[in-house]
């Protein structure tokens, strides 16, 4: 089946060829599956915003449960509340979303360049640390911010800022747009860092050397070679970061709610908390629309220029770092200090809190290992034993690892396939649709997504078995919720792989499956592995997505941790967060080690 060697003979053979082309078959198959797993829940969500629900009887006397209505949309867009519920938060969302995304892209890009392309010392240690902020739950970063910049009006001990400088920090530094943007950027810059680092790793030094010989300066090289090559990675990072920041609610709530600073996402959350689900869904659809616009812009940007950025070609490959000279140590110091502040310090704070008998009270006599190793003591924490002495936690740890690993692997492979289709068949509207559908789960309010999967898989429907209460269902929803990430990372990776490699293989008689396995997967592996790490971490930390689908036998660490946090047992929940962080780091190191071996072998073969 070598389609390019045989010239096309009329419509019939073309039809026949496209019907038997494995890529087309795969595309249609994936479209059907995603339509059921993503589009159908999305349509249900939309329908719910257009239907009176049981609970709506309290909103309006006209409510007839089950009947069609524009009520929720009218309330959100033109009702007396619309400024407070929609338009005001929308502006705040745009501001914090754009500012934090720009900050994250800047930080991620600069750091990636230092780590991958420069001869900065200590890279091996800094590399994993730089992904730590994403591993920590976003609220941990918000809490750390509060520890430093807390305003005296919340009571308790003064913050670090006040303790050191003697004056209270200004309110705009404690709460509102500034701290939200900065902490969001800290939490999400690893996206940009991982994606850009993946792209930079594929730059052939020969391109730069060529430029140098032709007389280009360092800045010129950066501007004319390095930056264009990593542009698709920046575009992907832009979408992921922007999408995630506008969808994030825990952090804006912690740092915004004290002064009534609301974003659309916190409004979604507030409406859900008050049981006004339909209103929450209207706002969720607004969020989805916002990010679809962002995707559209970025697709245009990447799509038009992508051919120019192919860096992995059939020719030889060499990677050489750039000497920083006198700047070597200053750069190292700056990067190390930054990594320490955003990656290690919050972990230390959590760790210290988990060994304090009375939380928030600093002093040696207050230290205890009870919350880690202790057995049940009725005087402490309702007699809850330490986390390492607790059978439930051991079972939950195993479940968590299994779920995160399986989901991350499946999501990455499926994501790469979708990415391949949407890059290589960019002119096919169905391929573009596939790309866009795969992004929808990103902005679904996760709790609503979970609820819909409960309904979707509670009973067998045709050939689809009932999956309620099974581990499979958890894997399924985790994979779908991670697709947006894995597709975006996949697109970045595939865009850089020159077509001629595949064309050569095709001429040599390799079928599509063989080409995908032997060319695309290995060459994309560095980017895809980064994506796999992101997914691994994401699944480990996920709570609201799966809380409705969990049964006691499929318990995971975060649901146990949620129980502790709910009871105010912060030492135990901190200890659990730390366990999750440590497991994630181990998982990352394993993935990195696998990835290194693969890339190294590949390079050996090439040279």
């Amino acid at each position, binding site marked *: 089946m070598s389609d390019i060697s045989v010239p096309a003979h009329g419509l019939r053979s073309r039809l026949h060829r496209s019907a038997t082309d494995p890529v087309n078959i795969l595309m249609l198959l994936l479209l059907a599956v995603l339509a059921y797993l993503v589009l159908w829940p999305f349509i249900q969500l939309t329908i719910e915003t257009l239907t009176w629900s049981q609970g709506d009887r309290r909103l309006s006397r006209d409510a007839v449960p089950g009947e069609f209505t524009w009520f929720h949309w009218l309330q959100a867009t033109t009702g007396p509340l619309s400024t407070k519920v929609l338009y005001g938060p929308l502006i705040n969302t745009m501001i914090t979303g754009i500012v934090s995304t720009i900050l994250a892209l800047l930080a991620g890009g600069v750091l990636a360049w230092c780590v991958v392309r420069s001869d900065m010392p200590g890279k091996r240690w800094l590399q994993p640390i730089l992904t730590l902020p994403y591993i920590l739950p976003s609220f941990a970063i918000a809490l750390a911010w509060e520890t430093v910049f807390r305003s005296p009006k919340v009571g308790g001990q003064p913050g670090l800022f006040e303790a050191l400088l003697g004056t209270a920090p200004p309110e705009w530094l404690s709460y509102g747009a500034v701290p939200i943007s900065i902490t969001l950027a800290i939490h999400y810059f690893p996206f940009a860092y991982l994606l850009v680092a993946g792209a930079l790793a594929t730059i052939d030094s020969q391109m730069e050397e060529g430029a140098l010989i032709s007389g280009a300066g360092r800045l010129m090289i950066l501007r004319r070679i390095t930056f264009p090559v990593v542009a698709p990675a920046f575009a992907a990072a832009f979408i992921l970061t922007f999408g995630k920041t506008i969808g994030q609610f825990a952090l804006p709530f912690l740092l915004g709610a004290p002064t009534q600073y609301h974003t659309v996402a916190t409004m979604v959350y507030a409406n859900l908390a008050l049981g006004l689900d339909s209103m929450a869904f209207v706002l969720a659809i607004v969020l989805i629309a916002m990010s679809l616009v962002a995707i559209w812009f970025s697709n245009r940007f990447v799509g038009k220029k992508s051919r120019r950025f192919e860096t992995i070609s059939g020719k030889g490959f060499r990677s050489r770092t750039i000497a920083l000279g006198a700047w070597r140590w200053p750069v190292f110091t700056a990067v190390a200090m930054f990594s320490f502040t955003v990656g290690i310090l919050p972990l230390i704070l959590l760790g210290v809190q988990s060994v304090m008998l009375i939380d928030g009270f600093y002093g040696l006599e207050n230290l205890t290992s009870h919350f880690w190793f202790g057995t049940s003591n009725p005087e402490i924490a309702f007699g809850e034993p330490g986390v390492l002495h607790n059978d439930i936690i051991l079972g939950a740890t195993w479940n968590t690892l299994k779920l995160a690993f399986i989901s991350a692997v499946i999501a990455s492979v499926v994501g790469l396939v979708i990415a391949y289709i949407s890059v290589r068949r960019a002119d096919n509207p169905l391929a573009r649709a596939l790309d866009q559908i795969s992004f929808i789960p990103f902005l679904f309010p996760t709790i609503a997504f979970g609820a819909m999967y409960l309904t979707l898989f509670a009973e067998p429907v045709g050939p689809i078995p009932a999956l309620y209460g099974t581990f499979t269902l958890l894997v399924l929803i985790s994979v779908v919720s991670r697709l947006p990430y894995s597709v975006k990372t996949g697109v970045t990776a595939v865009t850089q792989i020159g077509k001629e490699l595949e064309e050569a293989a095709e001429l040599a008689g390799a079928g599509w499956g063989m080409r995908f396995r032997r060319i695309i997967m290995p060459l994309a592996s560095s980017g895809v592995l980064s994506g796999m790490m992101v997914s691994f971490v994401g699944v480990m930390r996920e709570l609201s997505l799966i809380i409705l689908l969990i049964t006691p036998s499929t318990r995971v660490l975060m649901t146990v941790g949620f*129980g502790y946090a709910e009871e105010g047992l912060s030492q135990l929940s901190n200890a659990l967060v730390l366990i999750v962080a440590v497991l994630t780091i181990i998982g990352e190191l394993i993935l990195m080690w696998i990835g290194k071996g693969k890339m190294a072998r590949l390079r050996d073969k090439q040279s």
Partner: protein
Amino acid sequence: MKTKRNLRLLATTAALGLMLGNVAAADDAWQKSAGVGAYANETQDWAAIEAAAREEGQVVIYSVSSRIAKLVDGFKEKYGIDIIGHDMPSDLQIEKLRRENNAGVHAVDVLFNAEAALLLNEALPDELVWNFIPDGMTDDLDTGETEPFLIQRHSSRVVYYNTALNPDGAPIDSLWDLTRDEWKGRTLLPSPLEDSLSANFIQTVLHNAEEMAAAYEREFGEPITYSEGVLEAVEDNATITEPDAGMEWLFRFLGNEPVFQGSTTKIFKNVGDVQQDNPPLGITTFSKMRKNKEGIYAAAPIYDLDPVFGVSYPTALVMANEAPHPNAAKLLIRYMMEEDGFKPWNEPGDYAARSSIEATQVEDFNLPKFDDLNLWPINPEEIYFTKYGFLALYLALG
């Protein structure tokens, strides 16, 4: 075999019935075996129930409190039955149950749930849950604690102050003090937009407008007058026609920049921390007083606050519709109402519904009786039906 198929048929019919909004007929057999609904008043043969429960072997509970895990060993020892506990917020329990019911999945037996408004207005009328009252307890409980659903305990949200830095007693004596300049930016509470119990507190103040008006006069010595902002908000609001003292309080309170904090424990600590100069006040859970520590945290609730000490809300025990282990469910519900099964929740500030257990609590903790506290219980009906109006008002006044 045949009964199994019949049961499945029954379950499917029940699910179908639910979707059509016609539920009454289908699950008669289950109601009989569970002793709820039409069979609620039949005498309970506890020996038979226990035998049947042992046969069932396990009981599944959705619990708003993770302390349910504390019951597992004792219950197993006493009855040989496994408790399969599942921590979940109250509203999600009902959401999950509704979806399971619609799909014909019946996996849970008991709900331990603090969302009185949803239980009363959705879960009970839609027959997602049933009220089961174990024999011999009615003397020990008020009527309001057995109908429409069985109540295990009462919790409250109250106002705390720092006792170490206010040795002469509470710095305020009225809720209206919270609207004074000297408390600007110095009241902590969980955001009502995030925490439904905090919303309940504010809503309950709004529902008691007359008492708020009287308290205003006592505090300021003149009848209440309404601010521009309140009058405007009323004009814009479709469901509210007249301003009242509750709204005026909320308007002034929000204008006084209260600080919203996520965790009730944190609020307690920030109020009670003895190493500060100017401690704030905090609206938080009554039972946080157990966290007081000599020389570290010192805080107490303001019992004689005018017009009210705080707002109380119940935690209910109900049986899930078509519970697969109805007898074990009955046994667990009874157990959690008894001294042994109540133990994990026995702490100062949370009151057992049963007066016999409460009497011990009052003695052990040296606290006033629950009925002697000047608490406003939430009105689940009002809370439910005014939720949207509240959101509108809250955002308009803020």
